[in-house]
Each structure stands twice: as structure tokens, then as C-alpha cells.
């Protein structure tokens, strides 16, 4: 059982659209949408939710106003500027949940024991059925912390599903960037495909994400989306990626069918066209190299 992850470094290069097509080309596969901060895969795969779980992570400090005597110890100790006066003239303090890091220092040191420390609900995750196979996906609440735990939860559930339902593959839609959530989505993967675009930003971000893959020892491949926007830049970035040890798998031309498919809630390969053909070839190479 292997996990194949599609990431991008820079957002908006088309990784979700490409991954959705890979899902269709796989026949049947388990899917994991690990782009939990801005999950979009469900918009083209029409999942039917069969299980929903609340996602809790960490804690948050909450001051009980009736117990607070305004001593200000919490504000003094908080390193995250999460504590401020309530401003209602009562001299008491309040904690901003969007700034609270959940470290518990104020909770422990409040002389009145006036601060509670409940577990934080950060989002929810789902196990659903799609036309391509079972999908595990999630919705992180806006302004919630994205430590990578929800991503790890989604991946773990996807692996469990693959094992129990006899799938040999999990396809993972990864998040943009190089932080915790991306690390969580690529560690232990059999291979990663980074989707880039022939722009200065795209190339710059691709190199950072490939560095991350090398840092964690994960074999990486690259494909260039909308390559004909700037053929020279495409070649340059492919060269840089190859020097960094990544396999260069192919190029996808700019094609209005990509947006058209999204508007119809379908995948690009289900619509056809030049981009669809390129995606098919890239999938074959990505898939094949792992056999």
C-alpha cells in the first residue's frame, strides 16, 4: 500500500484539479484531502458523507469573569499577547481565543484559579464515498490552529481505510507552503508530485518545497502546468528541479477546460482536451515509476 502525494509549494498551480483527474484515472483508490485549510477536492468529486467526526486539538484558556480579580498576572506571563482588559470598566481580563496558543501558563499561574482550560474544537473530518472510491476529508474552522494534526488524522484514516477495504493506494491532495501541514502530508509517502507553473514565483516556491522533500528523504517529481504561458521559464524551472534531484514528468498546456470542468463539478480528464491528454501521460509516468 503506497501513498502518492500531490503538492505545489505555491498555491493555485492546479494541484487539486490534477489530483482529481488522477483519482479518475486510478480506477478506484482511496483519497485523502489534506488541504484542510481550504479543502476543494470535494467540489469536483461529490462525496456522500458516511461518517463525521469532531476534530479537537490542544486547549484554550478561558477566564471565568466572576472569579477574576484583575491582578493581571496572566497578562504579565502571556507571551502571545492573548490577554487584555475586558474594557468594560470591571478591571478584569479576557483572553482572545484567536491569539491563545494553548500553552497553559496563565492557567497554572492564576492566583485565583480563575482560568479554565477546555479542549479546543478546531474542525471536523469526514469519511465519504465518491465515484472514484472512499475519500477522507476535513474542514478546519477559520482562524483555527493548523498544526498538522488534522492532516495526520486524515492520512491515518485514509491508510486504515485502504488496509481494511483492500486498496493498494492512497492519493493525497496536499496543502500549499512548506510548514507543518505540508510536512504532515508528505512524511512516509512513497512519492510526491509537485505541480508548478512557469512563473518566477512558481519556480521560487517549487525549489523550497523540493528542499523540504529532500530534507525528509521523499522521492519527488515535478510537472509544469500552463507551461505555454512562458516556455523559456518552463525549461528553466524544469532544469532547476532536475538539478535538485526531482524527476520531470511532463507539461500541461493552458486549457480553458480546466476551469470549465470545475464549473461542471467534474474532473479535467472527464471533459477531455489538451490538458486532459497531458495529465493522462503524467499520471502514467508518476504511477509507473513506483511499480
Amino acid at each position: 500500500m503506497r501513498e502518492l502525494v500531490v503538492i505545489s509549494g505555491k498555491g493555485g498551480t492546479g494541484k487539486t484539479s490534477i489530483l482529481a483527474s488522477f483519482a479518475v484515472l486510478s480506477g478506484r483508490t482511496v483519497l485523502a484531502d489534506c488541504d484542510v485549510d481550504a479543502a476543494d477536492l470535494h467540489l469536483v468529486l461529490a462525496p456522500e458523507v458516511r461518517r463525521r467526526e469532531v476534530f479537537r486539538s490542544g486547549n484554550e484558556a478561558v477566564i471565568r469573569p466572576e472569579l477574576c480579580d484583575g491582578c493581571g498576572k496572566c497578562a504579565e506571563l502571556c507571551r502571545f499577547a492573548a490577554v487584555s482588559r475586558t474594557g468594560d470598566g470591571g478591571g478584569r481580563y479576557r483572553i482572545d481565543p484567536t491569539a491563545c496558543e494553548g500553552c497553559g501558563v496563565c492557567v497554572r499561574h492564576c492566583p485565583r484559579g480563575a482560568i479554565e482550560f477546555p479542549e479546543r474544537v478546531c474542525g471536523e473530518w469526514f469519511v465519504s464515498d465518491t465515484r472514484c472510491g472512499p475519500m477522507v476529508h476535513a474542514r478546519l474552522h477559520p482562524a483555527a490552529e493548523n498544526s498538522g494534526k488534522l492532516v495526520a488524522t486524515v492520512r491515518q484514516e485514509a491508510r486504515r481505510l485502504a488496509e481494511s477495504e483492500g486498496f493498494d493506494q492512497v492519493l493525497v491532495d496536499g496543502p500549499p507552503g512548506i510548514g507543518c501541514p505540508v510536512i504532515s502530508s508528505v512524511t512516509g509517502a512513497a512519492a510526491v508530485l509537485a505541480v508548478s507553473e512557469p512563473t518566477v514565483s512558481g519556480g521560487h516556491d517549487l525549489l523550497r518545497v523540493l528542499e523540504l522533500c529532500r530534507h525528509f528523504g521523499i522521492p519527488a517529481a515535478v510537472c509544469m502546468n500552463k507551461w505555454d504561458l512562458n516556455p523559456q521559464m518552463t525549461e528553466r524551472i524544469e532544469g532547476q528541479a532536475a538539478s535538485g534531484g526531482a524527476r520531470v514528468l511532463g507539461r500541461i498546456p493552458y486549457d480553458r477546460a480546466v476551469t470549465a470542468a470545475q464549473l461542471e463539478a467534474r474532473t479535467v480528464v472527464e471533459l477531455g482536451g489538451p490538458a486532459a491528454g497531458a495529465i493522462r501521460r503524467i499520471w502514467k509516468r508518476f504511477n509507473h515509476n513506483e511499480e
Partner: protein
Amino acid sequence: MTVAVASGKGGTGKTTVAVNLALSLEGPVELLDCDVEEPNAHLFLQPGWTSARTVSIPVPQVDERLCTACGACGEVCRFHAIVSLRTQPLVFPELCHGCGACLLACPVGAIREVPQEVGVVECGLRGEIRFVHGRLKVGTAMSGPLIRAVRREAGQGQITLIDAPPGTSCPVVAAVRGSDFVILVTEPTPFGLNDLKLAVEMCRILSLPCGVVINRSDIGDDAVRRYCASEAVPLLAEIPEDRRVAEAYSRGQAAVTVLPEFRALFRELYDRLHAAAAQRPVPAGRS
């Protein structure tokens, strides 16, 4: 005035809007690129660099001569960054949030804090525009501390523009909190709309007024426009897809330097933003 440029979805054009706004506005402007994982604004603005410094967070270091292996530090750490078994404490700096709980808990004062590098902050100048960005050290888990370091570089008495990372989670919150207005950039597609709704929700949670810019406004459908109307979110600008702009972008050039007629669009965007911000009273409980 501090204006943040954010977006639920990545790749919609945050950096494009932030950079072109900076280049189009009159008067003193500074641009802070808070997408510390993948900073891009400098590629377009091409500032002359004036300074750089490393940013660190304080992580615990245990003096083994004083440590009694009582285990208090490990007990209070919420992040498993310091672990005390039967032995002297183990520190995992990459998990440390720098909260100081272990320091405070140690009964014999055996813990002091040492800096752990998380990245760099670099400052520069492009003409009259002051530029600051952060670059996260690859492999570092948390962006928050570095984003806050970039925000602390903000000056006084000019327009401060902030280029936020994509998404709606804690790094974005660190980038946009305390600003006067948030521009949400989107595209007129189902992915764009889905992520815009999350971004608007984030702004509401943070009590920040927001407005929308639709980029590549002719590639999709009407749903984003209808959403803005029904939610009373001001529509600040619509930028049609333009191959010349896309090609300039791909070369690392800002639209307004290649196509000066776009300056007017960005100035109008800012005027509408200003009007929208002036109309909205500052909600109570702003953080």
C-alpha cells in the same frame, strides 16, 4: 492605515494585488510580505536590500548540574517539547512554542532559554516603497513567530500593506490581525467561492472589515458576485484575465510597470476600500 491582502484559496492573486497597490498609491507606502513559507513579493518589487537579521524563538536549555529530574518541566509542557523521564530532560526544539511554562515550573531554576533560529527578516527599499519580508527556515514547523517579527517592523504614518499567506488558519491570522481592512482576493470559480466564504468567516471572527477583489474576473461564473451582494461584502475591483498581465507576472514583473493603465484600477480599488472602511464603524471587541 494598515491593509492586509488575503485569500482563502492560494494562487488567486494576493501578491499581485499587494505589489501593484504598493506601486500605484501616492504617498509613503510600505509592503510587508508575511507569507514567510513562500515569500514572493520581493521577486516583483525587487527592492535594494538594506538589512537582514535572524529571528529566533526561546527554547529551553537545562543545566544538568542543577536538574533534580523531578519531572515538572515535562509535566507542564503542552507540546511535548521537553520530556523528563527518570533521566535529565530531553528537549525537542522543533516542537517548542516558546511559552516559558517549563522555565516557570522548574523548582530549582535549572532551565534557561536559548535562541532557536526560525528564519530571517529582511528589509529593503524600492524607490519610496519600504519593503519587509520573512523567510522561514525550511523544516521549521511554525510560522507564527516569524510572521509576528515581520509585523513588528511596521512603521508609522504611511500606508502599510500586508501580503498574507493563503488560507484561513493561524499563520494568516497572525498576518492580518489588528489591520484596519482586509482585501480578499478570489477568482470566479467554485474553488474560489468556497475558499472566499472561509476567508470572510475568518474576518468576521477577527472582527475585521473586508472587501473582495475578483481576479481573472471573466474566466468563470457569477456566483462570487452574487455571494458578495447577498452577504453585503463590498466588491472593490474586478480584474479581467489579461494574457499580457499573466506573461508579465510569469517574468516577475508587476502589471503596473508593464501596463501603466492598470494604475488607475488599483487607485480606484483603494478609493473604494477607503470608502468602505470609513462607512463601517469599528466593531467592539476588536483584537
